């Protein structure tokens, strides 16, 4: 009888022990390739047909959600893949947004040409902050990034070129194939394409040599170094890669909003993005997307709580860290 079906037995024993039975079911379901791809295809089709019936408010919320998915996937490379705590992620998003804003409005650049500059400046900022601190314990990185976030915001507020406290206004809308992008459904599709691109890059990175090196460093730094992985260099790659995601997202944010100000890049912003990544499940693309969606939809649904929002978020963060530190949809790698 015991030899009858060991697999079933095993499951019966495991079930009461596992805290996330729902996620177990989900994993089992998505483990089947055919089901997985049909679910993904259904999601993509849903996303593509939403603009044909949704009103502008719904599209605005969705576009915002896509924007946060990109930011969260970027931070996920730093926090989830490489295990480094970045508390000033909004700074990279600010670097990208201001680069595009300044180059288009003051130097007359075409929007698409500003993206390479955003990437360049994000990389430079990433190397300046990451270079010295990644040699030390990662606690230092956390607090230095927090300081860097503040420096960027203070600099944006006090410099003339960034428009001071009122920021930049009247940033030009981008042109694409001779069409000016200005309506909300234009940006809906633009950000949707970016999300697909971000997911693709994240997925490829995760399964690459680089991704495996990051995982090794995250799990056991000394062992990784003993295996010949240059830990400082690989950590810097992760940090800079996250910076580039933030910078590019910032560029697109600038042209969508047409106005940016230092108030957009408060510490709260960095904390929210981090919360979404932790909430969803560090290192897991699907988890991070769920986290980002919750981050955007939760306040829209519970508009009534207003100022209490961050308090509720802080409490949620604490409860998750104490009781379910791996997040809603954590990564599992065999």
């Amino acid at each position, binding site marked *: 009888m015991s030899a009858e079906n060991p697999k079933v037995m095993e499951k019966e024993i495991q079930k009461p022990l596992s805290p996330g039975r729902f996620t177990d079911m989900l994993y089992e379901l998505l483990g089947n390739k055919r089901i997985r791809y049909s679910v993904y295809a259904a999601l993509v089709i849903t996303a593509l047909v939403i603009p044909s019936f949704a009103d502008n408010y719904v599209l605005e919320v969705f576009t915002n959600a896509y924007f946060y998915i990109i930011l969260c996937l970027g931070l996920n490379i730093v926090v989830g893949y490489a295990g480094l705590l970045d508390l000033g992620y909004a700074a990279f998003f600010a670097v990208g947004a201001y680069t595009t804003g300044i180059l288009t409005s003051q130097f007359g650049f075409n929007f698409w040409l500003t993206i390479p500059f955003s990437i360049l400046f994000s990389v430079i900022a990433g190397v300046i902050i990451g270079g010295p601190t990644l040699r030390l314990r*990662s606690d*230092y990185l956390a607090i230095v990034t927090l300081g860097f976030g503040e*420096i960027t915001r203070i*600099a944006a*507020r*006090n410099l003339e070129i960034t428009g001071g406290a009122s920021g930049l206004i009247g940033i030009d809308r981008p042109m694409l194939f001779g069409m000016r992008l200005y309506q909300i459904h234009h940006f809906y599709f633009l950000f949707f394409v970016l999300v697909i691109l971000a997911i693709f890059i994240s997925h490829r990175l995760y399964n690459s040599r680089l991704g495996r090196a990051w995982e090794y460093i995250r799990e056991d730094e000394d062992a990784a170094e003993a295996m010949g992985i240059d830990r400082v260099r690989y950590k810097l790659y992760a940090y800079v890669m996250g910076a580039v995601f933030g910078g590019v997202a910032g560029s697109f944010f600038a042209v969508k909003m047409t106005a940016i100000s230092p108030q957009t890049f408060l510490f709260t912003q960095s*904390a929210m993005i981090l919360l979404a990544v932790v909430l969803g499940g560090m290192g897991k693309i699907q988890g991070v997307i769920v986290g980002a969606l919750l981050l955007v939809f939760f306040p829209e649904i519970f508009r009534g709580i207003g100022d209490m929002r961050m308090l509720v978020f*802080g409490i949620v963060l*604490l409860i998750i860290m*104490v009781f379910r530190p791996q997040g809603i949809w954590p990564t599992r790698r065999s």
Partner: protein
Amino acid sequence: MSTFDIFLQQLVNGLLLGSFYSLIALGYSMVYGIIKLLNFAHGDIYMAGAFVGLIALSFVSGIVGAGWLGILISMVFSMIAVGLLGVLIQRAAYRPLLNAPRLSILITAIGVSLVLYNSVMVLTDGEFKAFTTDLGFAGVGLGNVHITYTQIILVLATAALMISLNLFISKTKYGKAMRAIALDKDACRLMGINVNKIIAITFFIGSALAAAAGIMAGVYYGSIHFFMGFVLGLKAFTAAVIGGIGSIPGAMIGGLVLGLLEAAGTQLPFIGSEWKDVFAFSILILLLVFKPTGILGKTETERM
């Protein structure tokens, strides 16, 4: 004003600012020394100390007035209350995660910080609260510089707190246990030291010192705000790193050095007061590049 007057004025400003940094940096360093945690919520503990102190003062001032006696009583009350808050935070949020990956406990600390300052924000509607006292502006004049008695007493009070802390750590049984845990936690357990109790005492003292700094800042600046702990916490951390994190005399020296550097920085061309925070963080980043162990830190290279 002559150059000497400006120098003297900035010296006084720097000493006071440095005193606040030192008191808060001590909490960072003590907690770091004992459980290797950067307690992000520490700046918010300082903020909480100021608010608890203000509430206590509003009760006490009806009986003894808002002079030094009233301030002393509210300070003692606030130090005990916020010290217990620190112990509670440690017990509820940090202790369950002591053996979890480092990232989890750091994120938890941010969560605690968010909860603390947002609770105060909701309770105060995000407004500045006046910290009214009867101290006045009496003082002594040195040349053209007027130094109030308040400023002198605050610096002396900080010195008294630091001397008591040093005596506590070097002379008492608990202080010895703290130093021992910083060296080897497991060996301490085997020697019969109640490690959890000592960690709780460390949080109590660190939080009480931050609360004292919070009230002093309230008395000095005359108003308090829910966000006052954020930048100050960051700078106190910078001070702890300057002195050598984990070292108690280092935190004291680091705070004073940072306070004086900042006061000097406001006089430099191109820096001025808008850029003073940028100046402090740049010092932090430069220090981490060239001397990450700080002035009094140990030279061990530890990795995570």
